[in-house]
């Protein structure tokens, strides 16, 4: 079969030229993203590396870029991460289990649930900020606090965690379930003792990737007042800021030094994300089973 293609190509040089041009276009398409990514990284590191120092990590923000740090922002981001893990992961994995193991696909409400989650995954993040502003900050009277930020980011990444969790659970072969049922296990016994342990590495990987998305989110946090001057360490029921918000704040300052400082903060954020991603990939390679 491939012989035919080769003869045809060699007889018609115009076709061969066109084929080459097309391949060049495809390679360019793949390269564009990497070129921009490389440019971005080189640019940010050139500007910001000199600003990544003890001041950035351990000092509060200031009107003077020379002594300004991101300690409250870095802590805020770490706190947000901790709260996200406690709230969102159980709910997300629970939803995934329900949809994969319990829900009957022929029921209209389960189909609606599925479409709902797909749609939520594509709702602009700033709309979640609106939800937080209307219900958590003003409606519940929670105020512009860290907990409100964590809840909003939690709802924001919930669909991503559900989708990742479902994929991991679906990858567990049916024979494992059948075997457990044959031994007399109940449905929850099958799920909790067979399916979940087998799906755990996949669930963990997907969850960490979803969390790393939440950590970089800025817009919803702006909506609920994270853009404030916070010189002290964050508390759950107190005013807060986060690393991406700090980056935004420094970027829009007119002084050039603040833009360099923002590049330094970007390096910190990117390294944090890189560590999370590397951990997720390590988990997957170390523990994932092939069936």
């Amino acid at each position, binding site marked *: 079969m491939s012989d035919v293609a080769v003869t045809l190509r060699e007889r018609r040089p115009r076709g061969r030229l066109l084929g080459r041009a097309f391949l060049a276009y*495809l390679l360019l*398409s793949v390269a564009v993203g990497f070129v921009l990514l490389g440019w971005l990284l080189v640019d940010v590191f050139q500007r910001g590396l000199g600003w990544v120092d003890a001041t950035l990590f351990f000092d509060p923000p200031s009107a003077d870029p020379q002594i300004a740090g991101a300690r409250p922002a870095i802590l805020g981001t770490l706190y947000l991460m901790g709260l996200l893990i406690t709230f969102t992961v159980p709910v997300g994995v629970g939803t995934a289990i329900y949809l994969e193991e319990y829900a009957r696909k022929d029921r209209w409400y389960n189909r609606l649930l599925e479409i709902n989650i797909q749609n939520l995954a594509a709702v602009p993040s700033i709309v979640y900020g609106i939800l937080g502003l209307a219900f958590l900050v003003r409606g519940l009277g929670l105020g512009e606090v860290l907990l409100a930020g964590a809840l909003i980011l939690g709802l924001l990444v919930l669909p991503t965690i559900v989708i990742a969790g479902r994929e991991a659970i679906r990858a567990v072969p049916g024979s494992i379930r059948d075997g457990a049922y044959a031994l007399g296990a109940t449905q929850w016994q099958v799920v909790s003792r067979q399916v979940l342990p087998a799906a755990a590495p996949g669930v963990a990987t997907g969850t960490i990737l979803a969390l790393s998305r939440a950590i*970089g989110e800025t817009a919803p946090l702006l909506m609920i007042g994270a853009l404030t001057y916070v010189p002290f360490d964050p508390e759950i029921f107190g005013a807060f800021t986060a690393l991406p918000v700090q980056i935004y704040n420094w970027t829009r300052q007119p002084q050039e030094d603040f833009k360099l400082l923002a590049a330094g903060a970007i390096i910190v954020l990117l390294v944090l994300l890189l560590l999370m991603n590397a951990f997720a990939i390590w988990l997957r390679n170390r523990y994932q089973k092939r069936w």
Partner: protein
Amino acid sequence: METTKVEPVLTSRRRHWGEGVVKGALALCALVSVATTVGIVAALLEPSIEFFRSVNVLDYLTGTEWAPLFEPAHFGVAPLVVGTFSVTFWALAVSAPFGLGAAIFLSEYASPRVRKVLKPALELLAGIPTVVFGYFALTAFTPFLRSLGLEVEIFNAFSAGVVMGVMLIPTVASLSEDAMTAVPQTLRDGAYALGSNKLKVSVRIVVPAAVSGIIASYVLAVSRAIGETMIVLLAAGQLAQTTLNPFKAVETLTAFIAATAQGDVPTGSVEYKTIFAVALTLFVMTFVMNMLSIRLVRKYREVYE
């Protein structure tokens, strides 16, 4: 006789009431996402309805001047919508051809080994926070355009759109590639048997067969571009003017929401309600796009899977 008895006895004698509790708890988890949707709609509708009590809907949709904080106030949303579409146009102009090219390469040309490395590497782009892209567009890409001699303003739609477009390449590529992978091998084999080369198979067989998935990926990219906030807030500016000139500053729907909410807006004021009316506009636009995209994806799944 005994064997037929085993099954009913197991289920009826020992009632595992805990099973029902577990199922209920899991269903409750699933309800959180339903509550989120209901919450979003409720949060948007109530202040928006109040807003439209004081501002005529027609004036809002057809007015051409956006100045909600001035006296006299103007509430024509057109400049924000035009700004949004201007940025979205450039984002799609970059992500549509390159995303499709990357998808064809991954699905038709790359060996399994190359694909295994390339796919996650491309996803790296999607993992960079948007505030970082915004920083890059403002402090590196716009100055670069200026060094080329282009008359771009510091804040402009073009720079934000192009950087956003590159960011969206993985989104378009991965959804399109899914659709191309779902095209049965027999279609390709048939075309090769008739003497087609790889180019023809890709362009005349695989792309048309996967077209609903490709369109779905474009629709999703548009939806993302419309809803993206940080890049436009940093790089496209906050000047609500009706212009299609890509080198000028524009304000998008999202940038208006974010910029206005940053200030301390008193609850119940017109500014406060304006945020919600604009957000409702944004939500309706992206909702329609998302539904369309979900439908299109289901269409190719039904045909080939």
